[in-house]
Every structure is written in C-alpha cells, then in structure tokens.
C-alpha cells in the first residue's frame, strides 16, 4: 500500500515537472486579443446560466456564431449580482484569447473595471440586455429599452382602465437594480403617475421570484382589496401575483400587465392570467452582437452607442391607440420552450 502510493506520488510529481518544462516554452505570454483580419472569437457572459431568458440568449448567440464561422464560448455568474463571477468570466475569456466579449452585466457598475481592462487589451465589449453606467464603459449596447418597455405596459394598462382612476399595486424586482428602476419609472410615465401618487395603493419588491411575488401581494391584499390595476416587473412575478389575486377572487376587476415575452408568459396572456405582456427579443441582441464580433474580427470596425432591439405589447384584448400583437404572433416570436 505504502509503496504503491509513493510510486503514484512520484509519478504525479514527474508529470508535473515534465509538463511544466515543455509547456512554459510554448505558452509564454499569450496572444493578442485585438481584432482585425482574423477569426472572430466570441465570448458571452450572462448573469446566470439557468434562467430561460439567458439560455435563449446563449443558444441564439451560439447558433449565430456557428452560422458565421466564429469560435464561441459562454460563461456566467452564479446568481444575479455575482459581479465577482462575471469579472472572473471576463478574465478567463481574455485568457482564452477572445476578441469580442458580449456581456449582460449583473449590475450596471459592477464589472466596469474588468471591462475596461478588456477594452484596453483590444477586446470589443458589447453589453447585451442591460446597459452599463455610464453607457460609454462599453463599445456598444444592444438591449431592450427597458424604460420604453415599462412605458408600453403603463400605456396599455391606462388605456384598458378606460378612463377609470387607477388604483394600483406595483410588484417590483430587485430594489435598486437598473432594469427594475427603468421599467418601474417607464410604467409610471406610461400610466401617468409618479412614485408619490396616492393612486399607488401598495408596492412590494419580489426579486423577480414567483413565490415572493405571491407572498408580497397576499400581504398587500391584507391591507386593501380595492384595486383595479397591477404592474409586474416580469412574468414569473406576474404568475405569483395572479395566484394571490385569484385566491381572493379579484382577477376579473383587475388589469394586470407584465414584461418579458417568454413563451410561458405569452401563454399566461392567452389564458387570461394577465391582460398584456411586453415582449423583448434576446435572440436579436445575441445575433446582432455576434454579427458585430464577426465584423470586428474581419475589419477592425467597432459598433457604438445604444441599439434598441425593440419591444412589443402582446395581448388578445387590443385597444385602439395602443400598438399591439396577438398571442398567436407572440407564440411564434417568444423565447424559451414553446
């Protein structure tokens, strides 16, 4: 036993020495990450790799990379807010020689330092889905205009109330997150209220989580059931909210909207759980990001500025004056499992 373990130890040590000997020479220093006249090596860093939205984004980017002959590799943080994990991902992609990094930043300021280092090394960095603060920290941003998506939801809910004074619950995401703030203020603008309006009967943050939303709204309903409108920041929270409203038999007196355009969300709209959702298009973000990477590798040309990949109201109860698509169209264009 002892002889054998010693022999194994010696072998591992010998392997270590020999491999170190030959590899150091080959891989000293690494290569240049800059684009121009070469093959695109695209790295994608998402917030997490389990959320269906980011799964769709990753799948679309991968498909686009394959179609355009680019190398592709995808990394992610472990949870929403995992800046450290995203910085690690950026460093590892640079180490692998990526010349374009597409990133959905966990927080708008969290990974700026690492992005800066990547850009200084000649890497094209494009923010997808979530903008950075300031937006000049990246070369370009391909994303949903979240303020606009919120505004569309607000405008729909306002129109659906048909002149009635809104009595509103707001189910928010993670307090302070950029996307949450943009959708929230967009919604208020669309419905014509401010944060101080007495028409807002209650607010609850639910971190984008279905069960937290259900709990939060159940608690709000203890305070008052005299409401006629609900804002939800995304569809899982819309489902949780619906469950809470249904338990109180309130679903018919309420106009509820949401944002995301996941296939499950579109089905919720079709089944009447909420009146409308605002669809965003992760596939477009990913494809345009990869195309920009290919262009950069070929010509050294970088995109710039904010590129809105658009958003669309999905509802089966269209209202004159509010542009919308029906759920049939929605199911053809949604993301996630159809």
């Amino acid at each position, binding site marked *: 036993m002892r002889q054998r373990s010693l022999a194994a130890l010696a072998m591992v040590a010998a392997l270590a020495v020999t491999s*170190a000997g030959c590899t150091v020479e080959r891989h000293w220093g690494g290569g240049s990450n800059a684009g121009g006249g070469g093959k695109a090596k695209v790295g994608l860093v998402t917030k997490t790799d389990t959320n269906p939205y980011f799964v769709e984004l990753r799948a679309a980017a991968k498909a686009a990379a394959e179609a355009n002959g680019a190398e592709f590799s995808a*990394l992610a943080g472990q949870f929403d807010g995992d800046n450290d994990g995203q910085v690690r991902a950026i460093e590892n992609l640079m180490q692998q020689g990526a010349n374009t990094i597409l990133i959905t930043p966990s927080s708008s300021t969290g990974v700026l330092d*690492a992005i800066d280092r990547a850009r200084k090394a000649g890497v094209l960095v494009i923010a997808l889905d979530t903008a950075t603060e300031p937006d000049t920290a990246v070369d370009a941003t391909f994303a949903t205009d979240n303020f606009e998506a919120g505004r569309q939801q607000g405008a729909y809910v306002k129109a659906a109330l048909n002149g009635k004074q809104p009595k509103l619950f707001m189910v928010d995401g993670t307090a302070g997150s950029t996307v949450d703030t943009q959708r929230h203020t967009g919604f208020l603008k669309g419905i014509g209220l401010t944060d101080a309006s007495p028409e807002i009967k209650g607010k609850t943050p639910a971190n984008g989580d279905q069960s937290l939303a259900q709990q939060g709204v159940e608690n709000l309903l203890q305070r008052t059931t005299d409401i006629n409108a609900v804002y939800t920041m995304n569809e899982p929270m819309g489902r949780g909210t619906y469950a809470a409203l249904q338990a109180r038999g309130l679903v018919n007196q309420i106009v509820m909207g949401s944002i995301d355009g996941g296939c499950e969300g579109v089905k919720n709209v079709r089944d009447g759980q909420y009146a409308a959702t605002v669809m965003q298009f992760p596939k477009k973000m990913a494809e345009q990001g990869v195309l920009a990477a290919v262009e950069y590798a070929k010509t050294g040309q970088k995109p710039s500025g904010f590129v809105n990949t658009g958003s669309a109201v999905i509802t089966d109860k269209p209202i004159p004056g509010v542009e919308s698509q029906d759920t049939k169209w929605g199911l053809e264009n949604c993301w996630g499992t159809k």
Partner: protein
Amino acid sequence: MTTATLKNNERPSIGEFFLRAPAVGPALALLVAIVVFSLSTDTFLDLDNLSLVVQQSLVIGTLALGQTLIILTAGIDLANAAAMVLATLIMAKLVVGGVSGIWALLLGIVATVVIGMVTGSLVTRIKLPPFIVTLGLLTVLTAAAKLFASGQAVPVADELLKWLGTRRYLFGGIPITYGMTLALLMYLGLWYALTRTPWGKHVYAVGNAPESARLSGIKVNRTILSVYIVAGVIVGIAAWQALGRVPNADPNAFQLGNLDSITAVVLGGASLFGGRGSVLGTMMGALVVAVLRSGLTQLGVDALYQDVATGALLIGAVCVDRFARRQQS
C-alpha cells in the same frame, strides 16, 4: 520530506499519514488538477493565467482563513460573506461621503470586528450554537447591507480601497498584486500564530476537547472570543480584497461566499468537528476550487458540471477525513 515522515514511524498507515499532515491531501489534489489542466489545455500553464487563478481565489481564500479559525474551535460562520459585503458598502459609502480612504478602510474593519465580538459573545456568554447565531446574523446583515445601500451598488473610486487589486509588480515574470502579497503575509502570520504560540495551541485544544482544555487551565471562553475577533479583522480585510477585485460595493454580491469559504476549509482537510485543520490546507483548498473553475472553464465544461465536480470533491475530502479517523482509532 514525505519519505522522511514515513520512515520515522513504525507502522504508518495511509490514514495516519493524512491525519498527521492534513494539507497533503489537498496539495495532491491541487497538483493533479494542475498537471491535468496543463496537459489538456494550451492556455492553463501560462504565468499570467496562474497569477489570475490566485487573484480569483483571494476573496474566498481570505474569508476561508477566518473560517478556518472558527471551524478549529468546532464553530462555523455562515455570516462572514454578509459581514464582508456590509463592510465593502461602509467603506464605499464613507468614501463617497468625503471620508478619506484610510479612515473608510479602518471603519469598515471596525464594523466587522464588532460583528465578530457580537458573535463571539453570543457563543461564549449565552452559549448559543455558532450555527444558529451566524444563521441569524446572515439574515440581519444581508438586510442591513441592502437597507444601508438602498439596494444600490456603490462604485468605488478611491485608490487605497482599490489598491490590493490594481497595483501589481513582476516577480520572476509572474504578475503579483498587492492583494496576493497581503494574503500570503496573512497566511504566514496566522500559520505562525497557530503553530508556534500558546494561543494557537489553546485554539486547537479548545476545538478538540473543550472540557479537558478548561481543566488544564485554558480560558476557553476567552480563547473562543479572541478567535471571533481575529476572524472579524480577517473578514474586514477580505472586504478590502473584494474591492480590489471588483471596485463596486454591491449588496447582492457574494451570496454564496459563506459556503465557498466553508468548502475551501473542508477541502483543506479541516474537520467540522473542530480541533483539526491547518492554514496551509485551507490555502490549498481555496486554490483547488479556483484551479478547478479556471481549468474546467478553459476546457469548455459547463458551469453546472463544475459545481458537480466541486461538490463531489468536497464529499470526497470528508470521506478521506472519516477514513483517516477510522484508521487511527
């Protein structure tokens, strides 16, 4: 050195061997991982990359150092990462409010020391289990951080607060950050304190058999309290390390930091029942996780499979611990 250790003993079993030198197991795992990744990827064995792997393990490695101390006393700290996140926010907010970097840093560390004192007092005076105390604190501190920051991340511009990550020098061609240097000094310092001072012997004794320690004249409560205070200082320094890595104090960051630090300590050969473990082992444990992540990433292995690998390794490490103990008894 390995052969010498074995020769000096009459009938050394593998179990005894691991028990006597708990850092050997993780060191072997580290070596195997490095060899495998060096052979299987073109990019792993590159001095820049090796430096990067160490930098990536610094925050958890520092947290794990404090965790080691607490686990040695048969305790556990589930709130260390939450305390660290709160400290990063305190430092960042003070700087934004016009306080100088050095004061912000010191006050941040004071905060984690106070948290350590509170934990230690609850554990020693009221005899609450450390698991419960820190579980409660985890919730309290996470909420406090979010309240304190209004849920917003705070970017850090102060040079001193970023210093550990941004300043680097070359040592034999390897880029070394001041964060790496500081971590090394802390590991050395604590290694010395644990192995060469009476205080260190007391910590081990208290973790092994508190009653015999008390009977042999060791002030058990005072030792445990001192451990939580020292761990508090270390958590404060981890906050400094974290701002060096990501100069942005985020109340949502490091949600798994407590578990990651426990993983590093256990992979390093420490026993969750106290009294056994080493600073060197913890260093190896933290590095093993970082090496696995980096190497598997470069091999293109999905992050979820990386979690599977890390978890399996953790269970394996505890099996080795059990095996070693059974051999001994």
